[in-house]
């Protein structure tokens, strides 16, 4: 269908909804012939109902940072952008819960909560662009999940618009709740394939009273030593909120030191943070170097780390291929994964930045180079990871590469349950076509 025709049709249906001509030549795909910017839940519901009844496909986005994450379609009929659907719905300071519209930018939400010395304990990528809805729908997390958990530990309730336009609440507004199935979980990480999340209720934590970041670099690049140091550290009484291993290249970018570096974060009352730093000094191997960041330096470090993944919203200036993968393995296998990722640089002539959490097992690896090399390196890395019984998901790839590399890897044996869930909720396959595991 012609863009103009599609546009006029939609405009006639929804005269009150802001809309624009879509962009059809996006190298990341996941766009729409027409971009619509609903400002209310009713509008979102009406648009989905219309699409569902008229055989239209819908692509959903917050602010577009994850346009390169999954999906085999260049252009759906309609792109629903939630970027105008934003704001705090309810914040009960004493209950430490907040309800927020899904298009709210993550950093804005944190800024609002900071006034009350509270926070959502998530540290996703691109907090200045990413919406809370996108963070939840893609289950994005950062190094601090070691201390605070991930989206599934923070979300206590959702409002979701189903493809037929019905509005379904899952969970509730209280921090403990086992009434009915925990259907919140279905939507976290579902990549917008079974509903549009419109409101999110989150459990909050008090802002830490003190924070510090210890950068421990290992000039000998002795991975056995790093491994056994981490085992001792995890077995000690200290409670780091992050324990992230950086490959030398990433460390160079972030700290200036081109060595394997461990990022050990502490957040607690001041006396406890100081005490733990001292313990860390006692435990650290002799030849490792310790550099402690505080205040501005610390914040700048976290900010830079959270912005290392390519951002689908900002058009890449590089003429090389950028990619980013998420890897899950057992906690301590992270050391090997970071090492293997680092080796890809020489084998495939790439620039590779890699980091992974030794207490939680999730790694993120960025690759930059020629398209064929990037593709080969990802396949190689997937083989390595699978030999550790882990998985690899491509978090950012061009549409062209997504047609060559399976973003999600092989289907699990219980794939029929995923299909069953999708069919029950979105039988007409309206939402985010083929954006998820096994072409769901």
């Amino acid at each position, binding site marked *: 269908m012609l863009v103009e025709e599609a546009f006029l049709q939609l405009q006639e249906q929804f005269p009150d909804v802001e809309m624009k001509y879509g962009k059809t030549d996006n190298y990341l795909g996941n766009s729409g012939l027409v971009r619509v910017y609903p400002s209310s839940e009713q509008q979102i519901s009406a648009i989905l109902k219309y699409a569902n009844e008229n055989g239209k496909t819908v692509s959903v986005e917050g602010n577009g940072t994850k346009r390169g994450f999954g999906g085999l379609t260049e252009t759906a009929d309609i792109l629903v952008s939630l970027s105008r659907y934003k704001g705090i719905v309810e914040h009960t300071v004493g209950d430490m819960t907040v309800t927020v519209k899904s298009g709210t930018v993550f950093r804005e939400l944190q800024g609002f909560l900071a006034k009350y010395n509270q926070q959502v304990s998530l540290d996703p990528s691109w907090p200045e662009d990413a919406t809370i809805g996108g963070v939840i729908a893609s289950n994005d997390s950062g190094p601090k999940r070691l201390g605070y*958990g991930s989206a599934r530990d923070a979300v206590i309730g959702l409002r979701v618009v189903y493809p037929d336009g019905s509005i379904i609440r899952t969970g509730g507004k209280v921090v403990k709740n*086992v*009434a009915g199935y925990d259907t919140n979980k*279905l939507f976290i990480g579902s990549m917008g394939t079974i509903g549009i999340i419109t409101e999110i209720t989150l459990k909050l934590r008090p802002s830490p009273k003190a924070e510090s970041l210890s950068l421990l670099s290992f000039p000998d690049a002795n991975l056995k030593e790093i491994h056994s140091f981490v085992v001792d550290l995890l077995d000690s009484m200290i409670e780091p909120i992050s324990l992230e291993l950086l490959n030398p290249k990433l460390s160079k970018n972030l700290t200036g030191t081109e060595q394997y570096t461990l990022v050990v974060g502490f957040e607690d*009352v001041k006396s406890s943070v100081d005490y733990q730093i001292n313990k860390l000094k006692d435990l650290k191997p002799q030849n490792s170097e310790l550099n402690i960041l505080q205040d501005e330096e610390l914040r700048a470090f976290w900010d830079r780390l959270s912005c290392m993944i390519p951002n689908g919203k900002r058009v890449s200036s590089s003429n090389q291929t950028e990619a980013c993968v998420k890897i899950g393995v057992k*906690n301590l296998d992270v050391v090997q994964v970071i090492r293997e990722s680092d080796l890809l640089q020489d084998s495939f002539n790439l620039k590779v930045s890699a980091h992974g959490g030794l207490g939680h*097992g999730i790694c993120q690896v960025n690759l930059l180079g020629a398209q064929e090399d990037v593709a080969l390196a990802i396949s190689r890395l997937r083989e390595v990871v699978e030999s550790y019984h882990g998985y690899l998901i491509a978090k950012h790839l061009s549409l062209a590469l997504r047609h060559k590399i399976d973003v999600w890897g092989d289907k699990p044996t219980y794939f029929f349950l995923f299909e069953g869930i999708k069919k029950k909720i979105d039988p007409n396959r309206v939402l985010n076509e083929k954006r998820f595991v096994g072409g769901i």
Partner: protein
Amino acid sequence: MPKLKTKDKHIKKLAEIVKGPNSILYLKEDLLAYDCDGFTIHKHLPKAVVFPKDTEEVAAIVKYCDANNLPFLARGAGTGLSGGAIPLNGEVIISLVRMKRLISVDTENRRAVVEPGFVNLKLTNSISDRGYYYAPDPSSQYCCTIGGNVAENAGGAHCLKYGVTTNHILGLEVVLPNGEIIEISSDGIPDAPGYDLLGILTGSEGTLGIVTKITVRILKNPEEKQTVLAYFDKVSDGSHAVSDIISAGIVPAALEMMDKIAIEAVEAAAFPVGHPKDIEALLLIEVDGVSAGIDEQINQILEVCKRRNVREVKVAQDEQERGRWWANRKTGFGAMGAISPDYLVQDGVIPRSKLPEVLGRINQISEEFGLRIANIFHAGDGNLHPLVLFDAKKPGDTDKALKAGSACLKVCADVGGSITGEHGVGIEKKEEMRFIFSDEEIMAQTNVREVFNPNNLLNAGKLFPTPGRCIEMKSDVNEPLSS
């Protein structure tokens, strides 16, 4: 095989599947012990009880039941408080108590693998010498099973800081209602690609599948713990102290409250600690973590209590004293037996800030129904346990107790809370689901059940209200009518 005293062909077949002596019960006198769980108000006899020893036997039993249209359900220790393990439809009960091995412990990667019948507290006991523990600690932990905990998404006193069962489950092996065995994240690696099946199975009250193996997260023991006991002359002062502690930015490991009637009961029961009888409320507060920060937080807590007119406040002097305080608290439900012939445990959740208001309204309900209601609860996360005291021998009392319990849940729902925080819906709260969910929302959930359990032979008639007037759920035709 011993000769069976029955002609029932299904029982004979089942006896062939679960080999070994004492692997099946089918005589009425043996089945009586299985006609209810910790929710004793509804009773129904099962068809049989089978005791499989491994996953393959579970799968074979399930396949047989599915093929022969026999309803079935799983049972752990039977301590559930909402009736989840009651065989409403004369189910074949699949008891998992024989599958009780600790399969492996990996302290480096902080995980352990257990069979479903493994008792909760045994896990902590098995790894404490290495300095590790399993965080979710329901008061029934000395006997309830981890399989049952997964099914109910059990909580406990220390879940305020560490989260409930779902936050500690890393992998599951499940026998689906058609007998197929699936393994989800068996290596315990988080965020497996796809919809979060671990999340949906945990807390599904045994209606989506039978859990046969569980990978859990284990935690390092905190370096230090301190425990405070505070006595208040006014409930409102105690409630405000709860809010103040949280507002001070402290995340206590536990923050528990008991009111006057509860105190009367625990002092009359097996583990008295000498609480004054004339106080209106007590708080039991625990802070843990690295040793350096603890004193500071304890001092802040003591200050808050003083500001809120505490009559007396003390810090446990040693592990024995701390242990006594916790034994007194954790046996609180059973303690009701010391002051009342029967009691009904309720379980609702409210936004913490509504505590004073809700406790007042529960008081009114007590007066209205003429039944005493004790309150023992996880104040830190707003999870109330009103305990309605009654005498089942008095005509009408049971019914009154049920109604009073339901009225308490209505109050929780009305202030924006939930009808259950940890005990589940089961049979008990099916109808109360309507307090918080619309018909459409309930259907969205039964749709999920249909994906896993399309024939609804597994634990039917639980969790969801009997279909209402206008909404017809066709798969629910064999939903039994519970009186």
